[in-house]
């Protein structure tokens, strides 16, 4: 429909001064999003970037697209309305972990259930940044924050698990600093039809600095990150010699070449498998025993809310004799004086 669009990431920069702290992971994510969007072949005016409230939620102001900085927790619900009303738009939600999973938790799970074709980026810094350092639903138990001076006593959510529990069909994970991977995932999320949830592990230098440090640590990151790609083997490690195998109903890290393990024993990633069991295990992997799973972990095609709605409208319209308001007014029981 639209002519081929040639855009660069600069087209997506707005004229607003970027006001995140120096060193905040949000800067890298912003760059990744701008670069990825330039590659999507979508005209700039078709993007709608919608956010709640939080440091991360300032995002729309920095994007030279249509943007909406809404109220705390409601990004997903507002975006659901926008996309349902106007399926032609490419809708992107930016959520913090508090915004998306605390006050916005209900909209988050229902969005997944409905499978509306939009993309939601969850910037997970395990803290409330904007309000200066309270624990969030993803803060690790025991963490001392402004509202938990003696350590939190709450189990955190794992956002990916919540997606699965809510019938979610798409979940991917990246890290702020891995801009290439983030871009790759964003483009994949864009191409996926249905709700795409992308968790981005993000560093807040002020209130939860280094919270993902175990995985991002320069020295060890290759041993601590497993980047999954559909159809490829689950291999990682500095020497590319580590892999995952199934041991009963559990995953196990093995070393290729040791104990008779060969390349062929290693699991192949199937993001399209409907049954969520393996995805669940991957999402759940934690250090030190396991690497963190990155990449598109789950991507399952299913029917899409707004498409079904349009189809239902089209079919009712086709069969109904009522074509406009005047018809409706005169339908059913009437009488004339």
């Amino acid at each position: 429909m639209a002519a081929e669009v040639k855009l660069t990431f600069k087209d997506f920069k707005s004229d607003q001064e970027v006001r995140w702290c120096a060193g905040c992971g949000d800067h890298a994510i912003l760059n990744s999003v701008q670069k990825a969007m330039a590659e999507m072949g979508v005209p700039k005016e078709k993007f709608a970037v919608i956010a709640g409230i939080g440091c991360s939620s300032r995002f729309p102001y920095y994007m030279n697209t249509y943007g909406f900085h809404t109220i705390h927790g409601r990004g997903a619900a507002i975006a659901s309305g926008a996309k349902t009303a106007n399926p032609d738009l490419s809708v992107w939600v930016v959520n913090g972990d508090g915004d998306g999973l605390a006050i916005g938790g209900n909209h988050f799970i229902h969005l997944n259930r409905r499978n509306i074709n939009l993309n939601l980026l969850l910037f997970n810094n395990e803290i409330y940044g904007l309000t200066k350092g309270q624990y969030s639903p993803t803060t690790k138990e025991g963490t001392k924050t402004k509202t938990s001076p003696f350590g939190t006593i709450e189990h955190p959510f794992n956002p990916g698990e919540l997606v699965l529990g809510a019938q979610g069909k798409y979940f991917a994970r990246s890290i702020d600093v891995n801009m290439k991977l983030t871009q790759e995932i964003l483009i994949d999320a864009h191409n996926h039809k249905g709700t795409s949830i992308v968790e981005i592990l993000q560093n807040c230098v002020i209130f939860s600095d280094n919270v993902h440090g175990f995985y991002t640590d320069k020295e060890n990151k290759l041993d601590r990150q497993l980047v999954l790609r559909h159809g490829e083997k689950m291999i990682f490690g500095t020497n590319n010699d580590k892999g995952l195998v199934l041991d009963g109903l559990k995953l196990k890290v093995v070393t290729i070449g040791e104990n008779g393990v060969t390349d062929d024993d290693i699991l192949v990633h199937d993001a399209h498998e409907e049954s969520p069991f393996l995805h669940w295990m991957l999402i759940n992997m934690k250090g030190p025993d396991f690497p963190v799973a990155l990449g598109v972990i789950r991507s399952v095609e299913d029917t899409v809310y707004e498409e079904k709605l349009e189809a239902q409208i089209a079919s009712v319209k086709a069969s109904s004799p009522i074509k406009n308001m005047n018809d409706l007014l005169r339908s059913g029981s009437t009488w004339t004086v």
Partner: protein
Amino acid sequence: MTNKIDKVIELDHVVIRFSGDSGDGMQLTGTLFSDTSALMGSGIATFPDYPAEIRAPQGTVGGVSGFQVHFGYDINTPGDYADVLVAMNPAALKANAKWTKLGGSIIIDRDAFTAKNLEKAGYKTQDPITEDNLGRFNIISAPISSMTQETLKETGMDNKTILRSKNMFALGMCYYLFNRELTFTEQFFEKKFKKVPAVIEANKMVLKAGFNYGYNVQELTPYKVAAAEIAHGTYRNINGNTATAWGLVAAAEKANLPLFCGSYPITPATDILHELSYLKNLGVKTFQAEDEIGGITSAIGASFAGSFAVTTTSGPGLALKSEAIGLAVITELPLVIVNVQRGGPSTGLPTKTEQSDLLQALYGRNGESPVAVIAASTPSNCFHYAFEASKIALEHMTPVILLTDGFLANGTQPWRIPDMDDYPTIHPPIAKEGTENYKPYQRNPENLVRSWAIPGTPGLEHRIGGLEKMDKTGTVSYVPENHQVMTDLREEKVARIVADIPDLEVIGNDEADLLVIGWGGTYGHLLTAVHDLQKEAKSISLAHFNYIKPLPANTRDVLKKFKKIVVAEINNGQFASYLRSVFPEFTYLQYNKVMGLPFTSIELVDNFNKILEEK
């Protein structure tokens, strides 16, 4: 028939109330009676009175379902008290006798007055007439069930099925009583049961049998009820919720925008959502959200994305939406919020009517957060005010709260069907592709309205949001002076809607001893009471408000010509309070009632008389 005709009672208007168990089909009976009367040229108003939300065990007072029809000449309300009460069982009698006029008639199904049923209904004796002192009424004790059985005994139908049509026997009696034609109802049977001719026949037989029973029984003195002066046109019955839904759809059509409704079910507003869900033939999108907040915020998203967006709810739901309304205020997006008021506080009396959300509508948000507030005043004019609310929202880029209530929502009225060609086109200020140097908060200098750049339009990319906006550019601004400017602009923008709303009308003389002020759903009762007093040559007029914020331009001029003003409301005086804050120079008397019920015109007349007499 002549020997009976001379005993006819002539009346201008009559109230009849059908009541029985939830399973007795009273809603249908009432609807058929009302349709027939309308077709015969009567003015009509009806009000269904459902049992509380849970179905109570059969035969108990809690399970009684009622339907009241007021018909005749100059009908503005479903009537205060019934001239004729039909009570299909003891529980119905127990619940409704108090709503019958002294000297009125009560038709009971004698067969249903068994010991067991009397006990279930809470009677302590076998003689409800004496027990509840019902001798004040004209009791017509008819063997409705057994006559129905008798009538159909040769059809071969089983007893349960036969008894299901006993309501038609009662209806037939009432048709005799009020000299109604059977044909419309017979046609209804033919259409409804097209596929089962035996049922058509059976219903017709029972209806006729009831009519004949009336004719044959000396106890029944037929009434002659005046016809209404009805304008020519095509009519339909409509209730407030349907009229509201249709008004919104009509506005979308006239604005040439798709309609999006984000909502969450809540009594008594849910029927609007039901109706809109059906209207997929007109392209309406309904989004049943996970809660009220999801309802309004999805609507705000749809509005941002370029649809005409609405959300529908009742009191507690409006409370939940209040934060998000503020977002629509500061982003200046069009949005209609329909609030069908019910009894509060909290869950309160969810199936009952009240006008107690007015101050919530005006003030229930953080910050200085002005929205337009409009109220419908009859079931059928919910269409008009829904249309008006939509037009204002779209043309003034503002949220508008439309207030109706449980009484309007479920009440029906015959409505002369309008022609959409007579309705104005709605012109939302949509920014055109190619607009140079688009600024989201640049305003039309006349009405201060910003323009609406719809996502997807090349070149108009921009950002809006809930933080204070810089005048014109719409970027985030913490500048103190700008906050004052924007606060004032938002208030003034809503104030300027006044240019698009009609003047307040006075019913009666422009100057008089007493001005009755009302708003919203009390219109019919206030009008009836004021008309009654005017007929007695009392110096009284009525000013009924549909536009609440802003108030009509001539309000002060109207008010100042009266010696006394009384504000009558189904709450503790919320509109009076608001008027005091806007026009403190007048003194406002109040008449208030908070019983989950509409006014009765009788109590109003009493009260206004008292005010007129006081020095």
